């Protein structure tokens, strides 16, 4: 009936859009609430945090929780160690991963498929399953409780996905560009450095930031492979309980300090990463 009277769907659309928007806002509120509540608790006076009838809105702005969080246990030591580990992992992972990605995306060779399967298979085994033998291996190599041991272990965490995403980015650069450079007299290496590399740079930045975040966020291996005195930032937060029990407001301040830089980094690269991860996914 209505099909006869309405020439276009616009009036109906407009009305229903408000409903969708409302639903969208509900999703926004639900998904964002934990983040909001973390910030809210971190900045409110500690006594308001244990109000039995908490106010949903900010009740004041104080930095005292942050100074308390810094007092409870050494913060900068663990952060420094996390930085060293994550940066080392990213640098090594990018160099090694780039070489491997080039091999599987630009060369056809016997065994290529098996190599791809092998590299992807690494991702498939839950990290937790490997903790026992890795612990024993580092124990044998005298690398237990050393940052270098953790760095080399994290490479397995980073490498498979680094290779796979870089492959996705490389594949999107037409071979013809390289070939043209080679026709013009570049060597193969020259063509790569002058033509492919600059085009790849944004993808590489995104991949390294993502790898950095992965290494920074890892908890189990950091907990198991390093002793208390060498603990990293995630372990620092995981153990955030004092003799007075859990002090939630400082703990949220600690969480904020850990999360904000990472979330900001993440916001910067996420668009690029989503593109890289799914490159070619629909075509298949």
């Amino acid at each position: 009936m209505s099909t006869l009277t309405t020439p276009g769907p616009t009036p109906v659309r407009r009305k229903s859009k408000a409903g969708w928007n409302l639903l969208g806002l509900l999703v926004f509120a639900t998904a964002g609430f934990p983040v909001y509540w973390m910030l809210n608790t971190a900045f409110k006076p500690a006594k308001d945090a244990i109000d039995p009838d908490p106010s949903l809105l900010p009740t004041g702005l104080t930095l005292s929780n942050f100074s308390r969080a810094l007092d409870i246990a050494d913060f900068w030591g663990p952060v420094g160690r996390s930085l060293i580990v994550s940066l080392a992992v990213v640098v090594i992972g990018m160099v090694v991963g780039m070489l491997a990605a080039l091999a599987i995306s630009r060369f056809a060779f016997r065994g290529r498929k098996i190599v791809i399967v092998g590299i992807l298979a690494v991702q498939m085994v839950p990290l937790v399953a490997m903790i026992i033998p890795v612990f024993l291996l580092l124990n044998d190599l005298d690398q237990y409780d050393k940052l270098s041991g953790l760095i080399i272990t994290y490479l397995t965490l980073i490498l498979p996905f680094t290779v796979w995403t870089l492959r996705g980015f490389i594949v999107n650069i037409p071979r013809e560009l390289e070939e043209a450079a080679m026709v013009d007299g570049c060597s193969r290496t020259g063509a790569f450095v002058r033509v492919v590399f600059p085009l790849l740079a944004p993808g590489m930045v995104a991949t390294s930031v993502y790898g950095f975040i992965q290494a920074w966020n890892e908890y189990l291996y950091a907990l198991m492979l390093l002793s208390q005195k060498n603990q990293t930032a995630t372990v620092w937060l995981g153990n955030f309980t004092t003799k007075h029990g859990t002090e939630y407001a400082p703990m949220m301040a600690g969480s904020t300090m850990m999360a904000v830089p990472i979330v900001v980094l993440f916001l910067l690269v996420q668009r690029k990463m989503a593109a890289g991860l799914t490159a070619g996914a629909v075509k298949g």
Partner: protein
Amino acid sequence: MSADTTTPAMVPPRQAPPPPTVAEKPPRGRTAGGAGIPWLLLAPCLLILALVFGYPLVRLVTISFQKFGQSQLWGFQPAESVGFDNFTTVLADGDFWAVVVRTIVFAAGCVIFTMVAGMLIALLLQRVSGWVKTLVNIALVASWGMPIIVATTVFKWLFDADYGILNALLSKLPGVEMIGHNWFASGPQGLAVIMLLVVWGAIPFVVITLSAGLTQVPKELEEAAWLDGAGAWGVFRHVTLPILKPIIVMLTTLSVIWDMGVFPQVFVMRNGHPEAEFQLLTTYSYDRAFVVNDYAQGSAIALLTVLLLLGVVAVYMRQMLKIGEAE
């Protein structure tokens, strides 16, 4: 090429039979004689993976067939082989089976909720105004980027028995008195909270990937289906879903693998000592190895977990190989 992709291309022991198939399509524009170069490029990566992944994986298998406790760890006693003893002990243990069932139910719940909610939100994002979409995206990316440990800590605070905001809000409802309610007093309820945490953390990746996929669904196809009289569900079922299938398969398999491997969420939520009711395969294996100091049994459990995942992994591999071929 197409024949190549349709065969279940992942069974490893087929190095020998098909040498010519690869050689058939020579690298475009590449001079021959470069056979060594790709291996040279791969060498560092493969060496590292062999050392920190391959060797431990082999070790995991061997340890699970040995007696391996504290004294073997410190080298006081050599590790001796005990055959399938560890496996028979584990498999005969009623606790183990309870843990297996709990893990599967937990992971299945996580995966289903993640995928369904992710799909619904992705579809919703196509229908909302631009500013709402931006807001939702910001919230999603922020929760995606949150380190798991931070997210776990925040959820612990949200669900705190005495001062948690959730209990306070629920108590505002008429006739509900939740202040002091301990969400972690019972296993199922506590695991439901942990499931919520896992799903909350997993949805952004699914939504963003599916949204990217949805933009690739040709509008003409949807309109054609509309004109042919398909309803909203029909269009989704017969047009959108088939096109998104590769992405959905990839996301589902990845989610299964991730959700079967959930560890820090449970571990930190229960302050490093998950009670029996909270044990999943991962924490159970950890417990056996590092709390009971029976590394062999811990390894056996870890190995069984990996075997349990193999089927899922096979599906994922096939999908990824297709992508690898379709370049």
